[in-house]
């Protein structure tokens, strides 16, 4: 009995650990890579930062100008042509390999031993944040220049979009939720049914007509356009969630306030809002993450305007135009994630509560 309990617990914790590992490795690989040198990222896997056996350079032999590289050369006691050296020759547990071109290259002597690639740098983050051009020197001495990216601007833009896109729908929804919960008026049930019906409407249905309105109002490409869109798209869920919470507030507290002659506006401001902080926070986190991580709405309403682009758009653009520049992609991806991760870790409790409260997002 005791033994089977031990085996059970081992099985449970073991499989859980494997799943967690599977879930974490992709992110971990990217995080590690974002701190590696740009040439390292492209020439070896991120897992080589851990100790492993590999060919390690122990000596560098620079041939003198007198050596004729068009015929067999003798170096380090080995006679071979340039082509053979360039492919690499193995002898006595050592590897001899020509680095660079025929004229200005050199011979590298490697030994197979335990090693770890542990050079780390913040350069990738600098390049993806600050823009400008950067030069890297390849192993054989050639220099390559490539542009960075201006993600710091996009980061500020994303804040500028996410904060109002979170606060405005919550403000509107809180009033509406109170109205639906504690006021009696004709059409109340029907209008709330409308809110419920809109919960699952795919926003794709609304995009093109909204875009036309924006073009007519000349706001296409501005933050304003994105706020209004996110406000509209977030309102059904916000109203629904806040209604569920506000309508469940203790009836006697509310009635006591009414008897005391407090107006709806006063009750809302001084009683309902403070009591609803948990629900407001849950939805705020939900909406903030949603807006920050959104790509489609930004793509359509901000579009190609480079000054107003958001982090998700910048990152997607690097993927599209420079998909092999892993030093920019890895660092850029973490810049888009850093704020959501901070919000997530510090407010996870509220986030989970929000998820549990409403499992239908349109």
């Amino acid at each position: 009995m005791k033994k089977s309990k031990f085996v059970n617990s081992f099985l449970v914790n073991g499989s859980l650990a494997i799943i967690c590992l599977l879930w974490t490795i992709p992110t971990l690989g990217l995080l590690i890579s974002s701190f590696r040198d740009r040439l390292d990222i492209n020439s070896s896997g991120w897992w080589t930062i851990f100790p492993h056996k590999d060919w390690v350079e122990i000596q560098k032999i620079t041939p003198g100008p007198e050596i004729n590289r068009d015929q067999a050369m003798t170096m380090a006691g080995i006679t071979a042509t340039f082509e053979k050296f360039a492919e690499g020759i193995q002898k006595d547990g050592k590897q001899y390999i020509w680095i660079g071109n025929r004229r200005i290259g050199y011979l590298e002597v490697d030994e197979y031993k335990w090693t770890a690639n542990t050079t780390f740098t913040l350069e990738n983050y600098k390049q993806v944040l600050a823009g400008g051009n950067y030069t890297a020197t390849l192993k054989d001495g050639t220099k390559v220049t490539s542009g960075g990216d201006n993600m710091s601007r996009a980061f500020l833009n994303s804040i500028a979009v996410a904060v109002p896109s979170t606060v405005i729908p919550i403000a509107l929804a809180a009033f509406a939720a109170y109205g639906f919960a504690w006021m009696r008026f004709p059409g109340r049930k029907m209008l709330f049914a409308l809110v419920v019906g809109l919960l699952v409407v795919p926003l794709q249905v609304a995009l093109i007509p909204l875009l036309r309105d924006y073009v007519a109002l000349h706001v296409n490409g501005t933050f304003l356009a994105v706020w209004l869109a996110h406000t509209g798209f977030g309102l059904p869920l916000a109203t629904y969630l806040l209604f569920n919470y506000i309508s469940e507030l203790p009836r006697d507290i509310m009635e006591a306030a009414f008897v005391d002659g407090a107006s709806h506006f006063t009750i809302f401001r001084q009683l309902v809002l403070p009591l609803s902080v948990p629900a407001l926070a849950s939805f705020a986190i939900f909406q903030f993450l949603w807006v920050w991580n959104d790509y489609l709405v930004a793509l359509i309403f901000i579009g190609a305007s480079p000054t107003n682009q958001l982090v998700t758009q910048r990152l997607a653009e690097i993927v599209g135009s420079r998909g092999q520049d892993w030093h920019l992609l890895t660092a850029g991806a973490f810049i888009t994630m850093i704020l959501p991760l901070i919000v997530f870790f510090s407010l996870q409790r509220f986030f989970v509560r929000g998820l549990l409260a409403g499992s239908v997002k349109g």
Partner: protein
Amino acid sequence: MSASKPQSKVAQFIQALIGSLPLVISLAVLVLGFFYVRDLQVNNKDVPQMVIVLIAIIWGVGGVVLLFTTANFFAEQLPVKWTQRLQPFIFIGPALLMLTWALVLPTIRTIIASFFNESGAKFVGLKNFVYVFTNPAMLTVFRNNMLWIVFGTSFTVAAGLLVAVLADRSRFETAAKTLIFLPMAISFVGAGVIWNFVYAVKPVSAPQIGLLNAITTGFGAQPQAWTAFFTPWNNFFLIVIVIWLQTGYSMVLFSAAIKGIPQEILEASRVDGATEIQIFFWIMLPQIMGTIIAVSTTIVIFTLKIFDVVWVMTGGQYDTSVISTEFYRQYFTYNNNGIGSAIAVVLFIAVIPVMVYNLRQFAQREAF
């Protein structure tokens, strides 16, 4: 309060008029602010970005507060009967106006546009829908969406359930759940980059930097471009990304549901000699069936509308296009408003059953 004393009609009118002043002024401020904020972003390239951002936030957030306060002030200056009639609409009005403009009207406009040609000038009847349901490229799109819905949903639900059950019996519950849940905070674009890196492919001669190809070549096989020419399996490599992202969501909901099962029932069946597997299938599953259906529905809707992942990873090439990417392409690449709208309407029709279900549930609620 003012309305407690009997007043003459004229005095009431004057009071209402004065009471409306702040509302009129705040509406004017809002409208002017709208144009000011707009022009600030469009014209003034030399204003520091942070300043624009701050002004914009003050306008947006302050405007909402101002609007509600002044509108309420106005309502309270009216005779009591009118205050009571008007006040509910001050509370729900702005939200309803916004919903109407941003969702209700656009939906109707899109449905109308789906019966017109690409420029919206000529009525073409059902022609766009005929194209949508018969064009071979569109049929691939629907097949892909079916793959997304079937495999994306079932694996997300299964994985979430598995983790929830395992974590419930583990001492490391919180840590494990946090790790699985963490991808929920990551954008689809970010997740696309993460997985692009896992799937990265290098020529046979070079060392592989992508984990999957490093494993593949480690076993002696050829490196693969997983998301590109590997049709139709490339769709599955994209679906994996969404499973990875959404499992946290289903796990949280299942975990809460499992904790809601009364302990006595579980204990009783254990005493009766049921194995853990029997308990899972015969006791737990029936108890959390409601949650399973709710989670599945949410993820079906979600995968139905999937856009970002496909757009960032493949751009819809290599036979990976889905409804939403095709919608974007029709409208923005081919400028075809008619077919673009028809595709959006198909999405809308697909969610109508869920909408009806939600409304039915709502109709049964006693609160109303």
